[in-house]
């Protein structure tokens, strides 16, 4: 059990602008303490209609840390991310092979039903996608309601908690009945984060969550992530190396191979990837030689 005092303090206090300053890349990288594995990937490959999109990826996602996936476009970052909460199930002809284990249980061949799995592994998308016809409150409560939780007291509490975690509570607490569409883009994305957090996932997948946002909103989200990882493990896909360096603890670098299939080139702590990568291609990418 973790000491949550710092988090709860922040929750009870009004929203304050983040205090962490952005210094050099290396300063921001936390120390590489040993951590418990929550999601492990072994030889994971995704094929669409027998065309390989990503092949043979193996790495472990550590608990309460931020794991980033970087690489040029076409390297299969998003494809891999969507394999983690079985979103490829919707696509005809998509096959995920290899093993993906959540807390030691295979998510594809194990006994976890897909819907329950998805409430344990939440996801935030590139563009904010709040449900347009629902109010702010209903958006956040929707996941719990989907899962059959109807008690109003719990919902109220959970909504407040999720919005607070997403650093949105203070600005919306007076207009919970307002339509989600009335929020700004950045607020909408934080609402989506709150919506994902409300069902208390163990892992939160983020697919380029700031790619459609302005710099200020982007910074809000990035700041949020460092506090969020205390309560949820984060896997983030980003096309922005600086962002990966700023927010993540571990980093996976993917690259498109000869046959246009994405491959995992290197997985290590973010510090190592950005200061001393073992693969030359990683170094080339980090130094901006291609991509």
């Amino acid at each position, binding site marked *: 059990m973790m000491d949550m005092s710092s988090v709860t303090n922040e929750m009870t206090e009004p929203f304050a602008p983040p205090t962490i300053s952005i210094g050099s890349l290396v300063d921001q990288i936390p120390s590489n303490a040993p951590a418990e594995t929550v999601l492990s990937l072994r030889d994971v490959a995704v094929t669409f209609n027998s065309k390989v999109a990503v092949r043979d990826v193996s790495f472990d996602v550590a608990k309460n840390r931020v794991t980033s996936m970087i690489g040029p476009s076409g390297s299969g970052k998003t494809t891999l991310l969507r394999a983690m909460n079985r979103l490829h199930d919707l696509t005809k002809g998509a096959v995920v092979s290899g093993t993906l284990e959540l807390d030691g249980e295979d998510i594809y061949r194990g006994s976890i039903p897909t819907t329950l799995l*998805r409430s344990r592994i939440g996801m935030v*998308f590139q563009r904010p*996608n709040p449900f347009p016809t629902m109010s702010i409150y209903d958006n956040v409560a929707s*996941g719990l*309601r989907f899962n059959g939780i109807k008690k109003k007291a719990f919902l109220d509490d959970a909504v407040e908690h999720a919005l607070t975690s997403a650093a949105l509570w203070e600005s919306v607490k007076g207009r919970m009945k307002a339509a989600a569409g009335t929020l700004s883009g950045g607020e909408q994305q934080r609402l989506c984060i709150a919506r994902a957090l409300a069902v208390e996932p163990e892992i939160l997948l983020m697919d380029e969550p700031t790619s459609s946002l302005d710099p200020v909103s982007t910074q809000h989200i990035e700041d949020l992530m460092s506090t969020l990882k205390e309560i949820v493990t984060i896997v983030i896909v980003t096309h922005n190396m600086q962002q990966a360096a700023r927010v993540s603890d571990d980093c996976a670098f993917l690259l498109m191979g000869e046959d246009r299939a994405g491959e995992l080139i290197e997985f290590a702590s973010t510090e190592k990837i950005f200061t001393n990568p073992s693969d030359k291609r990683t170094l080339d990418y980090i130094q901006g030689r291609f991509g």
Partner: protein
Amino acid sequence: MTTVVEPSDQTLITTTGRGRKPSAGSDRPYRTLLAIVSAIFIAIAILFFYSIISKSIPGWRQTGLGLLYRTNWNYGSSQYGGLPLFVGTALTTGIALLLAVPVGIGSALAIAFLVPRPIRLVVSSVVELLAVVPSVIYGVWGLLTMESFLNQKGEPWLKNLTGGHWPFSGVPIGLGIMLGGIVLSVMILPTITAISRDVFGALPNELIEGALSIGATRSQVLRKVVIPACRPGLLGAVTLGTGRALGETIALYFLLGGVPSIHSLCNSLFCTGGTFGSEIAGNFGQRNDPVSFGILCCLAMILMVIVGAVNLGARAIVRRNLQRMLP
């Protein structure tokens, strides 16, 4: 239906600054031609409304506003109370919507989200083809196939259901409001299904994935997210279907029988009846003087106002909706 920026605004400016300046009169024949064509059609548009309105004046003079509320309709014996026609129109359209809306939207959902892709193409093409089946053929099917089915099986069954009480009291004849409503529902079903499917198809995928990723089941995605988000578009689809149902003439002429007393019309859905469209179709041949033709023009005018309003509403809804759906 999406609005595209008209190129003419900017392009006019760019042409004037060119080195090889086109002479001022060079486009004149083209512009004149288009102006003439437009003028002709503006004239036709005005004449269209003028003809129906002006020819209906002798009719209004004969009936007064009684055409809108009196209860005795019998064109052949010059009784012009239009209330039974309002009731008939409302009942047939109501039955049609009651049957076609859930089935139409349900099958649009099934086509858009459940049916495998190769079958989906076939199914939706078939639905679109159904939308172009001429209404007289629905009349043939209604009269020669559905009529005897309703008469022998459908209506007795419905009658048993309510124990012979309202709305299924009376004699199961086959021909009548019930038959008209059912065939109308079949006629508007393709319209509703095809447009609803387009509306569902235009929904951004992220909404569905967003709902799935917080643990919604597929039915929850459809019921709680997809349908509410598409509601304006669906309303547009239903409104267009309503417009078609309200304006149907030929098929209903065969299926409704004729207008009985308002009393029996309110008593049972099995009773024969008439709508504005079916009465126009049934009596157009009997016009012989400005008054009797005028009465028909009055009916046409009422029909034009009702259907026109419904269609304008649909047009507004669908436009606004398409704009709102783009995130």
